[in-house]
């Protein structure tokens, strides 16, 4: 179990005559990833979703807030003492092409972390090779074919599976998958997503899935939770299927509206939402963060900042939180032609 409360992160850029500029990457994010559970963070670039993944994986520290792993608050430990905890969280990068050392065979890439693991758990040398084969079989590739090969001899999908196998060498409790399928051919994406779902079920590994494509979050498995992140703030949160079917925040609706419609199989939703302007730097911080782009913004939105909660009252779905003064259901997702 990993929880985060009130996670904030500010990046300060140097340079310029008037001193540095501040970018608030995360503005008080709360989340919880249960054993074998799945949590998806959705947002555009600049939403802070990658920063959050790096903080959860221990590659970045937060400015305030607390990460708690298995009941132990990380801020109470020295940098050194934290390492065993963060080892239980493994990060899978977006780019399987640069995540593997091109001068090492897959066997070498897996052997090094496994040797470390064997030392930690008091296992013998012979365990290492067996485990390497076992892990590769687990991620759905033929160990005999892959082990002696170099990364460039494998396809993108295979490489991503190797990266996942390498992450599993540490027996992690949580995998942080940051855009793990965005560089894989669309035809093979479902295979990787099904693998992550399978690992959740078989090994009880929790998955923190970070993506800009909401549709892929559905395939990580049922009972998943979806967090919609915008400029460092969670603006909508709830069960994945529920939010996709019944979004009430205009930003979530914009994201869903932007998903391509497969004309011929689907018709566009009747109330697709298009932001008034494109994402850019330097949008104002006062009021609702989305107000400037929101087609439904009112005066209140310009001056007051909504926090994650339930503003909608009766009309909005239960167990679904949003940070919007004017939540409203809208039919934004494509409808099947036959329906």
């Amino acid at each position, binding site marked *: 179990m990993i929880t985060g409360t009130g996670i904030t992160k500010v990046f300060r850029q140097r340079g310029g005559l008037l001193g540095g500029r501040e970018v608030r990457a995360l503005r008080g994010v709360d989340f919880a990833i249960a054993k074998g559970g799945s949590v998806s963070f959705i947002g*555009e*670039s600049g939403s802070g979703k990658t920063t959050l993944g790096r903080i959860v994986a221990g590659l970045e520290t937060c400015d305030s807030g607390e990460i708690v792993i298995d009941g132990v608050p990380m801020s109470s430990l020295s940098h050194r003492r934290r390492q065993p905890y963060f080892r239980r969280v493994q990060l899978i990068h977006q780019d399987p092409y640069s995540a593997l050392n091109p001068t090492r065979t897959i066997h070498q890439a897996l052997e090094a972390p496994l040797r470390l693991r064997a030392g930690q758990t008091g296992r013998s040398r012979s365990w290492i090779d067996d485990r390497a084969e076992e892990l590769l079989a687990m991620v759905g590739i033929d160990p005999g074919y892959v082990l002696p090969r170099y990364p460039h001899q494998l*396809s*993108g*999908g*295979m490489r991503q599976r190797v990266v996942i196998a390498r992450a599993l060498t540490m027996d992690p409790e949580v995998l942080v998958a940051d855009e793990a399928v*965005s560089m894989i*051919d*669309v*035809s*093979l*994406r*479902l*295979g*990787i*997503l*099904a693998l992550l779902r399978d690992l959740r079920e078989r090994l009880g590994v929790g998955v923190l899935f970070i993506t*800009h*494509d*909401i*549709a*892929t979050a*559905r*395939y990580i498995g049922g009972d998943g939770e979806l967090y919609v992140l915008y400029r460092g703030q969670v603006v909508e949160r709830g069960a994945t299927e529920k939010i*996709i079917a019944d979004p009430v925040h205009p930003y979530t609706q*914009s*994201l*869903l*509206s*932007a*998903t*391509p*419609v*497969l*004309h*011929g*199989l*689907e018709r566009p939703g009747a109330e697709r939402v*298009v*932001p008034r*302007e*494109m*994402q*850019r730097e330097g949008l104002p911080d006062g009021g609702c963060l989305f107000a400037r782009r929101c087609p439904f913004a009112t005066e209140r939105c310009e001056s007051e900042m909504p926090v994650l909660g339930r503003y909608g009252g009766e009309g909005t779905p239960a167990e679904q939180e949003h940070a919007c003064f004017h939540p409203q259901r809208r039919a934004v*997702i*494509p*409808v*099947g*032609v036959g329906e």
Partner: protein
Amino acid sequence: MTAHTAARHPAARDIEARDIAAPGVRIRDLTVVYKTPSGELPAVRGVDLTLAPGTITGVVGESGSGKSTLALSLLNAVQPPGRIAAGTVEIDGLGDVLTLRGEDLRRARGSQVGYVFQAAQNSLNPLKTIGKQLLDLGRSHDVADLRALVRDAKDLLARMGMDGARVLDSYQHELSGGMRQRVGIMLALALNAKVVVLDEPTTALDMITQATILRIIREVHEERGLTTLVITHDVGAVAEVADSLAVMYGGRVVEHGPVTEVLGDAHHPYTQGLIRAIPRLTGDLSLARALPGRPPTLGTLPTQGCVFRERCERRLEVCETDEPMAVNRDGRTVACHATDRHLTLVKRKEFV
């Protein structure tokens, strides 16, 4: 949105009135080979593809399907170790591009055929402002009125929702991915090219940015009366923007037709598999699955029979030996032995 909807019905469109200048493009029997240690291997083989004037054609395929090589052929720009081995690429008003050489070819590129390269950030010069690159482009094509060129470019950038003057003064690193992509489109159109090729125009962009870029492509295409080719691995992206859809596999066009028909009622097993593999917001999760196997590379392509047979669930004996011919019926082209059988009722009884 209205323009978008109208374009879904090519037959109902008043092509004459709006697209007088839009040229047609006819690719015939195009074969492009690459030199490898095991001899010359075809990346594109015997491709026939017609881009109707004033339409957007989407070419979809996995990596290694030959789609980018096909697109480069429109500029006659296949680089060694690649070589165009056979075929013609006829563009109205320009003739067969593959016979153009030297100065004629250089002039055709940019002024007749605009090209938006994959990963726009890599095709911009990091040392020069966008405006300077625009002027370079103008000078290399002997544009007499450079002021007009800059004015047009600013208009076009404004049309795409950007501050033209600011963008022209910027270096590429000062622009976001979506902005660079629009700059790429501006540079491809600056010399008034009527045929435009976009290679993976939305890869690596956010959803909302992707939707915006696709809308811009559609609108600029309509306004300027272009003939457009969009190359992508993402069926969804092309479904939003294209009139007709060509599906490539192993260097062949295996299916081609109006986009709504190809998606709504795919004939080729590969197209069906591709569509099933798209992560979607609606629909039964259990019906979706990745295509089995992996895309072929030049070295692993079978030399005889159907190139798709190893990943095909409807493989027949004939697929091992004979390459399926592209059959054209009611404006749709399909190259598949199994589909042929299934379409013929008499044959279908044998299977029941």
